[in-house]
C-alpha cells in the first residue's frame, strides 16, 4: 500500500547573511492512511520547519531545495503550482497551530473564521458555510455552538480557542492534519481533553495526524510511530512501544531520561548537556557527538547513516555497529552554552 504522505530527502535551507542554515537536512519518512505519526525533538531541531515545508509555507530566505520530494495523494507538493497548492492547504492537508490566540484573527467571530475555510474551498453559500461551521464546532465539543460561533476569540478560553482551530482544520475533512505543538500553550487539564478530542475525531474520520511535539508524554498517548529529530535530521524512527522499550540513539535516551517520573526521587532532572548546534554550522560527523555520553572507534567526521536496529526500528548512531561502547559512558566533550539557534 502506498503511504498517504511520503517525504524523501527533504532539505529546507535558509539562505541568510550569516550563512546557509540547513534547518531540515535530508529528512525522509512516510505517513500511512489513518496513521498518527509523532515527531519529537528539542526546539531548533527542525520539527516545525518540516511541518511548514509540507504545506510549502516556508518564507524567504527559506527554501525547499531541489531534489526534495513530498509526495501526497500522487502529487509532488514541492513542484506543484501555487493554485493547486492552495487547493490542498486547508482542504486535503490542514494544520493546527501552537498558540490558539494568535492563530485566530481578532476582528472576526470564530464562526466566521471556521466558515471561511468552507468558503475558500467548498463553493458554498454564506449560509451553508455558517451552518457547517456551527456543526463542526459542535463536533469539537463546544457547548451551545450557535452562540459561541458569534463570539470573538478574546471571549473564549484557551481550550475553547484550540477547539475552534481544530474545527477549522477539520471542516473540509482533510486526509492529513498536522498538529504543531497543539497542547503546549494550554493548561495541563485542558491538554488531555484536547488530545482526547483529536484522537476521537481521528477515529471518526480516519484522518492521518502528524503530531509535532517536544513532549514524549503526548507522543506516548497519541501516536503509533515516532520520528526523533535532531539537528535537522531523523536520528531515530520506531513504533511507540519499541521506542519506549528500547531507545537506541543516545539523544532519545537523553530525552527519556529528562522526563520526570512520578515515584522516582531525584534531586534534579537529568538534562542533556549543551544545546542544539547552530543550523548554519552542523558538525561534519555525528551531529550529536559533542553532547553524547558515549564514544566510538570510527573517524570523528564519519556521518552515521540510519542503521537498522530492530523491526522497523532505525537509528542514526554508530553504536549500532559498535555496541560495546554503550558500556563505557563518559562525560560529554563540550558544553556549548547559547550556541544553538531557535
Amino acid at each position, binding site marked *: 500500500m502506498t503511504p498517504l504522505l511520503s517525504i524523501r530527502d527533504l532539505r529546507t535551507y535558509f539562505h541568510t547573511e550569516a550563512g546557509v542554515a540547513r534547518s531540515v537536512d535530508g529528512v525522509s519518512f512516510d505517513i500511512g492512511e489513518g496513521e498518527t505519526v509523532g515527531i519529537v525533538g528539542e526546539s531548533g531541531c527542525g520539527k516545525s520547519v518540516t511541518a511548514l515545508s509540507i504545506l510549502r509555507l516556508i518564507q524567504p530566505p527559506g527554501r525547499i531545495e531541489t531534489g526534495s520530494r513530498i509526495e501526497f495523494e500522487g502529487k509532488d507538493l514541492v513542484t506543484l503550482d501555487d493554485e493547486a497548492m492552495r487547493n490542498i492547504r486547508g482542504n486535503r492537508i490542514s494544520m493546527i497551530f501552537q498558540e490558539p490566540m494568535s492563530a485566530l484573527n481578532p476582528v472576526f467571530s470564530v464562526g466566521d473564521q471556521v466558515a471561511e475555510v468552507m468558503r475558500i474551498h467548498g463553493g458554498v453559500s454564506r449560509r451553508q458555510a455558517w451552518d457547517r461551521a456551527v456543526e463542526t464546532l459542535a463536533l469539537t465539543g463546544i457547548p451551545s455552538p450557535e452562540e459561541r460561533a458569534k463570539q470573538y476569540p478574546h471571549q473564549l*478560553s484557551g481550550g475553547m480557542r484550540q*477547539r475552534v482551530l481544530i474545527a477549522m482544520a477539520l471542516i473540509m475533512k482533510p486526509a492529513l492534519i498536522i498538529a504543531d505543538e497543539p497542547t503546549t500553550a494550554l493548561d495541563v487539564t485542558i491538554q488531555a481533553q484536547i488530545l482526547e478530542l483529536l484522537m476521537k475525531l481521528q477515529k471518526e474520520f480516519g484522518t492521518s495526524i502528524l503530531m509535532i511535539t517536544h513532549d514524549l508524554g503526548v507522543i506516548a498517548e497519541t501516536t503509533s510511530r515516532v520520528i526523533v529529530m535532531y539537528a535537522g535530521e531523523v536520528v531515530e524512527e520506531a513504533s511507540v512501544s519499541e521506542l519506549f522499550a528500547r531507545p537506541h540513539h543516545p539523544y532519545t535516551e537523553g530525552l527519556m531520561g529528562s522526563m520526570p517520573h512520578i515515584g522516582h526521587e531525584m534531586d534534579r532532572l537529568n538534562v542533556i548537556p549543551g544545546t542544539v548546534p547552530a543550523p548554519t554550522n552542523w558538525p561534519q560527523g555525528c551531529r550529536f557527538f559533542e553532547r553524547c555520553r558515549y564514544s566510538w572507534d570510527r573517524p570523528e567526521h564519519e556521518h552515521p547513516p540510519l542503521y537498522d536496529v530492530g523491526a522497523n526500528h532505525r537509528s542514526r548512531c554508530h553504536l549500532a555497529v559498535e555496541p560495546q561502547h554503550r558500556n563505557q559512558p563518559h562525560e560529554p566533550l563540550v558544553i556549548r552554552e547559547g550556541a544553538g539557534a531557535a
Partner: protein
Amino acid sequence: MPGQTQDSARIEPARPRESPLALGVRAILRKRSSRVAIIVLGVIVMIAILAPFIAPYDPAAQPDIVAGKDLPPSLAHPFGTDPYSRDVLSRVIYGARLSLTIGILATMVSLTFGVAYGAIAGYASGLVDGVMMRLLDALLSIPRLLLLLGVLVAWPHLSIGSLILFLGLTGWFGLSRIVRGQVLALKHAEFVTAAEALGASRRRILVRHLLPNLVSPIAVASTLGIAHVIVLEAGLSYLGIGVPQPMASWGNIIYDGTDQIARLWWMSLFPGLFMVITVMTLNVLGESLRDVYERR
C-alpha cells in the same frame, strides 16, 4: 452531546455583541471629552446638512451693495454683512457645508490611495516595497502646501471637484506609511500564516485578514486628516486660490474681509470660530480613537 467539555466553566456566559468594533465604540463613548466632541460635531454637521433651511438669507445675494455693506452684527444680521452686502451668518452656514464636504471627500481620496499604496508595499515587501517607499520619500520631501500652491497658481480657476482631488492626492503619503507599517507588522502574525495554511490566496489575506485589523489606525488618521484638510482649504481660500467666489467656505469668508481686518472683525471672528471648533472637536475625537486602540 459529543466531546464532553469540562473547561466550559472557565468562560463567562455568552455575550454575542462583543465585536472589536462595538467594544471600541463603547470605549470611546465612555470618555466625556469624546462624547462632547461627538455632540458638537453632530450639531455642526446638522447645520451643514440643513443649511438651506436655517440660513436666513441667500449666501450669494447682494441685496444692497451700497447701504447694506460692511454692517456690524445686529439682529437682522447676527454675524454682520460683508463688503458685498452679503449676510455673513448665511455664508458661514453654507461655508460649513462646503468646508466639511471638501474635508470628507478629500480625505476619502487620500484614504483610497494611502491604504492601497501602503498595503501593497507592506504586503509585497522586498524590492517592490523598497521602490515604492523611496518614491514616497521623494513625495514626502515636498511640503504639501507648496505642492498645492504650485498647482493652484498654475491652474488658478480650478473647479471644486478638482480642488478636492488635489487636496486628496497630496494627503495620502503619511497614511500609506502607517498602513505599510501595520501590514508589515501583521504580515507575520500567526493568524496570517494560519490563513495561508488554510488555503487563502494572497489577495484574500490582504483584504479579508489584514485590512480589517487596520480599521483603528485608519479611523484615527482619517479623523485627523479631515481636520487638516479643512485648515488647508481655509488657508488656500484665504490666499484667494481656494474655493472660487461666490461660493462660501470658511476660508474665503475670512479672505473677503482681509483688507480691513481690524474694522470688519466679524468677518474673520465668526467663520474662524466655527473652523476652530470643528477642527478642535475632530482632533479630540481622533485622539480618543487613538487612545482606545493603543490601549488594546
